[in-house]
């Protein structure tokens, strides 16, 4: 369960996130969408404790996120960024196992095999370095790394942004299946309305640090809170997949 209460962030005069209060639905996928610079990635980074809010508080599983507990709370949240954010000096396997090995967790081999099966990555690919993998493979490895400790929460920041359309649509389908199977609380950042519609039970549409509307795709389509919501949805060129 993740709840933000009155969370705001500014850099100098520039407001990157206006005070936001929202409870993210456990076990469901929430999509943060909006144009570049709308504050969606900032919100994700606030939830990870990578930056600290100016005001308000963030509650993760009934613990208030602070500078002191951020490091351990991160173990309950998998974080995936564009292109996977893999460490180039480590093989795929070493990337995935890095934290679990450091924490001396048991049964690593079993968990690794399980995840490889889940994201459909071959054993051979696990021994490659990130530079030897394709974009889609890197993204799969990034996802495995995020899932290694089986965290209840997954935060994904434009996870498919760097992929070609075919790989992207394959991975979208896989991800959706994985989310449904694992029942994780997923918060996914994207700027693509089609992707948002495909994944999101709940969508937060943002602009200039402000959440304009929260709701299902139907709500946004049929009851836009502002003309901008309608414009944003219409401006997306990719055809919406069937609901």
């Amino acid at each position: 369960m993740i709840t933000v209460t009155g969370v705001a962030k500014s850099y100098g005069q520039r407001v990157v996130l206006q005070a936001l209060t929202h409870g993210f639905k456990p076990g469901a996928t929430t999509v943060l969408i909006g144009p570049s610079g709308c504050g969606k990635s900032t919100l994700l980074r606030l939830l990870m404790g990578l930056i600290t809010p100016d005001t308000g508080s963030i509650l993760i599983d009934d613990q208030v996120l602070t500078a002191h507990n951020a490091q351990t709370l991160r173990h309950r949240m998998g974080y995936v960024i564009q292109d996977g954010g893999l460490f180039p000096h480590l093989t795929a396997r070493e990337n995935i196992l890095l934290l679990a090995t450091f924490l001396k967790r048991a049964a690593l081999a079993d968990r690794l095999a399980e995840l490889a099966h889940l994201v459909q990555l071959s054993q051979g690919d696990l021994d490659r370095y990130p530079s030897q993998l394709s974009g889609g493979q890197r993204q799969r490895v990034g996802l495995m790394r995020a899932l290694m400790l089986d965290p209840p929460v997954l935060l994904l920041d434009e996870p498919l942004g760097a992929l070609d359309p075919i790989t992207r649509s394959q991975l979208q389908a896989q991800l959706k299946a994985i989310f449904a199977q694992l029942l994780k609380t997923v918060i996914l950042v994207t700027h693509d309305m089609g992707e948002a519609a495909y994944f999101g039970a709940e969508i937060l549409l943002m602009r200039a640090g402000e959440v304009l509307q929260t709701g299902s795709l139907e709500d946004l389509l049929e009851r836009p809170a502002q003309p901008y919501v309608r414009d944003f949805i219409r401006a997306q060129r990719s055809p919406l997949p069937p609901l």
Partner: protein
Amino acid sequence: MKWVWIISVWLLFAPWVQAQETLTIGSKRFTESYILGEIIKQQAATVPEAQGVHRQGLGNTGILFSALKSGSIDLYPEYTGTIDQELLKNPQPHTLSQLNAQLLPLGLGVAVPLGFNNTYALAVRADDAKRLNLRRISDLAQHPDLRLGLSQEFLGRQDGWPGVKRRYALPFNTPKGLDHGLAYEAMAAKQVDVIDVYTTDAKIPRYQLQILEDDRGFFPVYDAVLLYRLDLPQRLPQSWAALQQLTGMITAEQMSGLNAQAELEGISFAQIARTFLNLGTTQDPPQTNSFWDQLWGEDFGRLTQEHLVLVFGSLVFSILVGIPLGIWAARVPTVAQGILAVVGVVQTIPSLALLAFLIPLLQQIGTLPALVALFLYALLPIVRNTYTGLTEIPPQLQESALALGLPNFARLRLIELPLVAPSILAGIKTSAVINVGTATIAAFIGAGGYGERIAAGLALNDNAMLLAGAIPAALLALAIQFGFELLDRWLIPKGLQNQKISNTAD
């Protein structure tokens, strides 16, 4: 890495594995001083009391005086005029007993006048002297277009150029300094017209120079004497007694002849001293002077070891201090500029100045101050490469590392340092190569290494000897460069080899 440590420790301590009473003699960086140092050493060795050690060719008067005061050496050949004006800053000439009274509080004394006066003089080419009718220093005033080639030491001393210029009201601007060993060549090549010489220099007749008469009696008397620590006669009474026999033993002509044997005939200092003291001449094979003989001379192993100790001994400490400093600078932006500025400024201090500063601070000459100086010089590349490497890790990688939830130290050890390993290794390589060159300066303070040959070669104007020191140093630098390239393959993570740290999409 274990073998690196074992070798480092061995290299560091190997030179210290020797004991018993020693008599340590210093000498300055010119032929006469080298020869006198050898004469003192061999004369003292006529009694079996102490092991004689000749720290030859030390940088300059200041370094020798510091070394003497700190007890790094027991005595060295000096000249009364230098003691009077340069060391004690006396405005008027003093007698030997007056000098002794002044030196007493320092725990030092002068004794054993060797018998000759080697004063400073100004010399011109003989043909110029004839053409321009130059006989006396005061004649120089008529020829302000003559080019001066004066040694650094002469330029800086009160009993040198500043005093001459004032006494004779000479119309010359103060020129840039020229190494004394090079001055004669510069004269022969007509690059300069007037140089400072010592009156016993062997090269004065060889280069057909004429000494200008000191018609206003400016230059003080430079009687050669022994400047020694007062504890020496008590500690080694027999050796000291043996040294008394040197009193009045060397005339100016003899000294000039001994200098010529070294500089013109290429006879070794040790052999010259042996012959002079009638201690037999048969031990040495006939002296040859070829480059190859000099290169593979009996001191090659010792010099190589000393050079390696200097380079790698200091490098180990630079790594141990430099990498944490670089990390600190990268972590705490407020201290970064301060740290980088300090290690940068250290780099700009001239090496001889830094060494001269470290000797009184550390109360000794030799390996320790040389190691400290090299350590300081090697810091900058290591600190800066560690700092820039860490600050230039792509932000998305830094965030990925943070988002994993690893503690700070683990993040540094498992992710950040391996990522910047190529950059840090490049910094260490730069430091090592620079150190090989800088370490040749260490010979000026008696720390040995290939610089000993370079210093002696300069003093003797012996290019073969100079090259016999410079070429091994250059080869060592190349070898180190090559060695580090092998080390790169071993230490840099495979995923990073032959590519930049980046995480961009394909």
